[in-house]
């Protein structure tokens, strides 16, 4: 991470000419590493091996050692064979996106790639397939080996800093098997995006439910008599509001209108936050509150232009976090 940026950029410019930077979008969700898109060059160890062979050759030449020639040329032949084997290690491999895990800003987001052979063909054993993100200095490469005709998942962890959608940059798939003499690589531009939630504010103040009584406190108070608080189900009512028993008995979908638990619904309101707080700080605090609410408390979220009615559970929490991650964009729903 501490490497100066300028030499790295220079090197990258040398290593990837424009024709290599053309995007390779997947066809039917799959990027195939066919031979038109598989590149191979000797690695540093390979160059060292070449120097060694040269030294062995010169010694053999000078003293005319036939056995020396034999050993040198045999190793040279094996080196040539390695080139082919290294190439075959990645040849006709397919890479497809296999899902992402959302993360909080500052934590790494996980991108899963499915690695397999072309359907219907024999795939060799593939050793040490390494996926890396050359454009992301902080991302650790992930590696994987596959048995014959097997497929597997590779998970790349990409560091995050900002909330919102995080697209997977170009992935470089490479391998150095066998002997590390050659590096074979190819690229895949997979349309994978991960959602990055705002960073939860550390040491956030306690949840503000006491400070925000409902507008009409009477109606929301829980009542002993549950019947007259039923109403017809309206689309959008959370699952846990559905009165299952009554619905089954009456044959109509019914929802409860009142609070089922002992605690009142708690509105997390953008406007109610101290005016001095900046946008991201507000989102951070709201995020921390959403997390702090846990599974027992019903919360609702009010952002400028966005309102999520009170609810609880994993799906509800996810909806809240997503709204926080994408605010002020509302196009987040189903846009991936």
């Amino acid at each position, binding site marked *: 991470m501490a*490497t100066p940026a300028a030499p790295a950029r220079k090197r990258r410019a040398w290593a990837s000419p424009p024709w290599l930077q053309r995007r390779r979008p997947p066809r039917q969700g799959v990027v195939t590493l066919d031979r038109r898109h598989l590149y191979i060059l000797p690695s540093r160890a390979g160059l060292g091996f070449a120097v060694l062979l040269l030294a062995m050759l010169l010694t053999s030449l000078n003293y005319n050692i036939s*056995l020396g020639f034999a050993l040198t*040329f045999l190793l*040279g*032949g094996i080196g040539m*064979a390695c080139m082919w*084997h290294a190439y075959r290690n990645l040849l006709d491999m397919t890479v497809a996106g296999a899902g992402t895990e959302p993360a909080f800003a500052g934590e790494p987001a996980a991108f899963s790639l499915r690695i397999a052979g*072309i359907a219907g063909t024999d795939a060799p054993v593939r050793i040490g397939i390494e996926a890396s993100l050359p454009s992301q200095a902080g991302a650790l*490469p992930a590696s994987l*080996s596959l048995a014959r005709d097997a497929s597997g998942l590779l998970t790349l962890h990409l560091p995050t800093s900002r909330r919102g959608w995080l697209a997977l940059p170009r992935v470089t798939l490479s391998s150095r098997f066998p002997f590390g003499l050659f590096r074979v690589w190819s690229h895949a531009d997979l349309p994978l995006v991960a959602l990055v939630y705002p960073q939860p504010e550390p040491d956030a103040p306690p949840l503000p439910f006491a400070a925000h009584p409902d507008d009409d406190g009477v109606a929301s108070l829980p009542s002993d008599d549950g019947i007259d608080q039923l109403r017809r189900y309206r689309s959008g009512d959370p699952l846990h509001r559905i009165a299952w028993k009554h619905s089954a008995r009456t044959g109509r979908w019914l929802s409860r209108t009142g609070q089922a638990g002992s605690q009142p619904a708690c509105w997390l309101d953008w406007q109610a936050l101290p005016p001095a707080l900046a946008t991201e700080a507000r989102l951070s605090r709201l995020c921390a509150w959403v997390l702090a609410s846990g599974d027992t408390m019903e919360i609702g979220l009010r952002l400028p232009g966005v309102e999520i009615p009170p609810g609880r559970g994993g799906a509800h929490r996810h909806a809240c976090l997503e709204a926080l991650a994408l605010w002020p964009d509302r196009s987040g729903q189903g846009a991936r």
Partner: protein
Amino acid sequence: MKPTPRTLAHEEHGLLLGQLALVLAPQARSLPVTISVLLVLLMSWRWLLWRQRAPLPSRLMLALIAGLVILVAAALVWQSGGNMGRDLSVALLGAFVVLKLLESRVLADATLVTQLCFYLLLSLYLFDQPFWLALYSLAIAAWLLRNWLFLGHPEARGYLAAWPLLGRLVLIGLPWALLLFVLFPRLDRPLWRLPQTETVAATGISDTMSPGSVSQLTQSTEVALRADMEGEPLPASALYWRALVLWQFDGKTWRPAPLRQRHAQPAPGLPATDEAPPYARDLGEMAGKASAGNSISYNITLEPNQHQWLFLLDRGQAIDPGAGAVVNADGEFFTSDPIDQRLRYRARSAPAKPQALDLPTRQLALALPPGNPRSRALATEWAEQYADPAQRARAALRLFAAAPFSYTLSPAPLGREQVDSFLFDTRRGFCEHYASSFVFLMRAAGVPARVITGYQGGEYNPIGGNYIVRQADAHAWAEIWLEGRGWVRVDPTSAVAPSRVEHGIDAALEASEIEALRAVRDPGWLRDLRWGMDGMVYTWQRWVLQYDRGQQSRLMQHLGIGDSLPQALLAGLATLSLLVLVPLVLRRRQADPVQALYARFCRDLARHGCVRGPAEGPQDFAARAARRLPAAAQAVQDFSERYTRLRYGRQAPALHSGELAGLRQALRRLSRQLAR
């Protein structure tokens, strides 16, 4: 963030240590003792650290040891007179690889150590290249490769076995290796030379001859040279491997004439076709049977002996490689450097042409030290009695042939007047005694004469088809100069013990003396075994070890490639490179045979005017084609059904090979019906 380099596991350290030990062990054959001890100490230290799982020593410590190693090496260089020999260079490299091992922590270090191990393996061949070493180093190289494979990819252990993979790599690599081995140009002369330090003693015959000294050489069965020649094996009596001409006698020791040796010119090379020179038939009149017929071409593989002279059949005419070898007027052949590795050369021999004797040579060939009055008197008597010098020589041979002269390897010590003492008192001796006294007598009788040293005879190995000449076959004989015939070979030993010349040294010795040799020269079935082994060794040397520029160019001539070696090499490499691509092409073609067949089906129908639309499914297309081509409707439907079943049916790929054949047949039927 760069991924942190992988640190080595305990077992990997152990493997590295083990492979380095195995690579270094055979070096002990040739390394100076000091360095060997140092290496053993360093390796033991590393081993102890490994056993106790102790941390590696600090950089400072290693720097100190490296300094110590350099000091020891410098001391050895100084001791050998500023001479950094081959063995010392190898030893230094070995020491530094061990030091590198002592600071190896991560994968990159281990890779470097492994690669250097390959170089150390090669350096084993610098001293000699016996057959066992080839097998040993092959095994070690395979093991090194296996370790290297898992060192770089430890995760591969669970997925594949190393040996089949290495076998495949070797199989693919072998054509490259063979092509390069045969065609890669060899050098005529070295680019640089690290002299062998004088730890290796010179062996074989020396350049002086003192008949009085004890004969140790004769007992050794060590191989001096091997020779193979075309045609029938020669009789042993024709096998005089001539090396040196000794002119100067001081009463005890015969020595060469340095000025004559130095006055040499580049030896003539062998022409492509040997032309036999005129041959004086009766050359060996007095020396038993002559070497038969015309000139002889042969190959000699000379074991390293640290001398500069070459052995050729009497008399050598030409030698190949001619470069570097010189020949003088006396027919002695020399190399420019001491022979410190096995040398193979091709030579041609033919009887010497009659030569005129110039005055300085005549004086040299008649010069005698004072002393030995009884011998002089005898020679003077012959000189008066016989006008013909040849008859004087015959008189001497008759003298030796008569009792009580006999052949022995353990002669009695000679007195102060050595020739007199031998001729008139002890009368028992071996070739040196006879050659020395004969030449003395001849010179005293006014016949120009000189002593020749070399080997005589040799064991013919019918399995290898070659002669094995041992140190025990060392021999000395004489040459006298006769008017009109030049220098003529005379072997006085043959007069005493003809069997020595005809059947080798065993036959010439008395029973008790043979016992001494029998320990190493066993007869019977063991001899067959020994011949078999030696034949193998010789074949190995001849075709693998001695494959040099000369052999290469001969092979190229034979193959008709001639001088265009680089072109042939490049063409071969290009061919192999293209061959590597074959699997890629085949792979593509065989990607999906079902689809390939369907493509042919569509092409066939398109040729008959029925082109499949871009969005048309196989069944729709087949139905349309069947309507359009009613003659082939059934075949079209049949093929289409089979195709649909194969392509969209639920079947394991391995099961449908029979179905695939059916599909292929259906296509063939369709083609036939379409053609009608």
